[in-house]
């Protein structure tokens, strides 16, 4: 007697949800697609929200930017909640190792007092900027319509809160966890002339109404100048003074910024490439905000790396903007 072994395959009735199949075709979808596309309610709203009755819920008119379909803006990292949390847990583990090493060896407390003061005056006050960035990105996540866009911004918001906490921990390492250094650094933020233009810019950004204008200001312009200036140029400047140890504690910020550039660039490319009207509007906003971001960082650059470093960073930002058919006004050619 012979036994014949044969395989039988059962075709599933559906490969994925209908709304995902309508967009990508009837085939197995990625988790990112299933967790990100066409999730928000679009029709049949009964009441306008009391907090802003000019618009419906999930109303695309909350920004002046017009997109045929906002879902063309998607995350090249393909972060949905699970992937995002897993990735950040890994990054945080690496950062924790550096922080506990620094703490155990007491590396920051051993620095000369003058260098410690500079860290508290020039770097730690940025935690207030980070909190502003957290609030701005949260607002954007609330106002943006497509889930791909809002989820990128809410992850960005959480990241900024984390970065703010890392900066606070640097201060706590300097003062031996008494909190004195945090008070001192907040004093610089509130009263030092050096920080007032930045403080004004952050406060002004909190009341920007158009959410895409806000993401342009926060994530493209301000961060595009601030992160390279502080975490690359100023980092090198600290190293020259023998404070290389601080680099261990800011490595997270460098890794994070490199990664977040990818989705920000992808978003800008999609939105600026959609229409000339979008590009003109973006250019108007850049003309308005880019010089303000530059001016806000000017005193900080002058007190540390020198203005040349900020100008170089500005030229780099301009090169980035050019890829989207935009430019910053401060840079000639």
């Amino acid at each position, binding site marked *: 007697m012979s036994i014949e072994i044969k395989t039988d395959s059962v075709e599933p009735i559906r490969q994925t949800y209908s709304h995902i199949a309508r967009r990508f075709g009837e085939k197995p979808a990625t988790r990112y697609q299933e967790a990100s596309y066409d999730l928000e309610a679009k029709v049949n709203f009964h009441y306008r929200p009391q907090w802003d009755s000019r618009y419906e819920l999930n109303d695309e008119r909350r920004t002046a930017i017009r997109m045929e379909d906002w879902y063309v803006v998607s995350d*090249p990292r393909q972060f949905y909640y699970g992937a995002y949390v897993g990735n950040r847990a890994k990054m945080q583990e690496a950062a924790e190792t550096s922080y506990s090493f620094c703490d155990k060896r007491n590396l920051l407390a051993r620095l000369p007092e003058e260098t410690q003061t500079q860290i508290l005056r020039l770097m730690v006050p940025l935690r207030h900027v980070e909190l502003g960035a957290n609030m701005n990105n949260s607002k954007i996540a609330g106002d943006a319509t497509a889930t791909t866009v809002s989820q990128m911004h809410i992850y960005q918001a959480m990241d900024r809160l984390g970065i703010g906490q890392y900066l606070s921990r640097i201060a706590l390492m300097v003062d031996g966890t008494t909190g004195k250094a945090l008070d001192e650094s907040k004093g610089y933020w509130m009263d030092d002339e050096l920080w007032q233009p930045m403080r004004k810019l952050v406060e002004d950004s909190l009341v920007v109404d158009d959410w895409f204008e806000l993401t342009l200001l926060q994530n493209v312009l301000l961060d595009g100048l601030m992160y390279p200036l502080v975490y690359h140029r100023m980092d090198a400047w600290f190293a020259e003074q023998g404070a290389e140890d601080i680099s261990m504690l800011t490595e997270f910020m460098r890794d994070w910024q490199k990664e977040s550039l990818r989705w920000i660039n992808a978003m800008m490319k999609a939105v600026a490439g959609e229409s000339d009207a979008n590009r003109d509007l973006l250019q108007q906003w850049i003309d308005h905000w880019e010089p303000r971001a530059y001016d806000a960082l000017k005193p900080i650059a002058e007190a540390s790396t020198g203005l040349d470093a900020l100008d170089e960073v500005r030229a780099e930002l301009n090169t980035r903007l050019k890829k989207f058919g935009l430019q910053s006004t401060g840079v000639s050619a």
Partner: protein
Amino acid sequence: MSQQLVFIVFQDNDNARYLADAIMADNPHAEMQHQPAMIRIQADKRLVINRETMEEELGRDWDVQEMLIDVISIGGNVDEDDDHFILEWK
């Protein structure tokens, strides 16, 4: 003489779908077969898996060795380094 087929078989899961897409993008001459719970990709003589293409598909850094988690079987001589994984008959 008949064709000399190289092949690679993956488990049909969320990871391997990215791999299958990357392989099909790099090897237009390849043929993909969906079998119960597996994806088999075969091609005449040569199949290339590039790290760069895979990283683009995935949106993150990718180590060629990560692939092995999802591999069920391969046929062909293997040439592997940090940037690619090549199957061919020599």
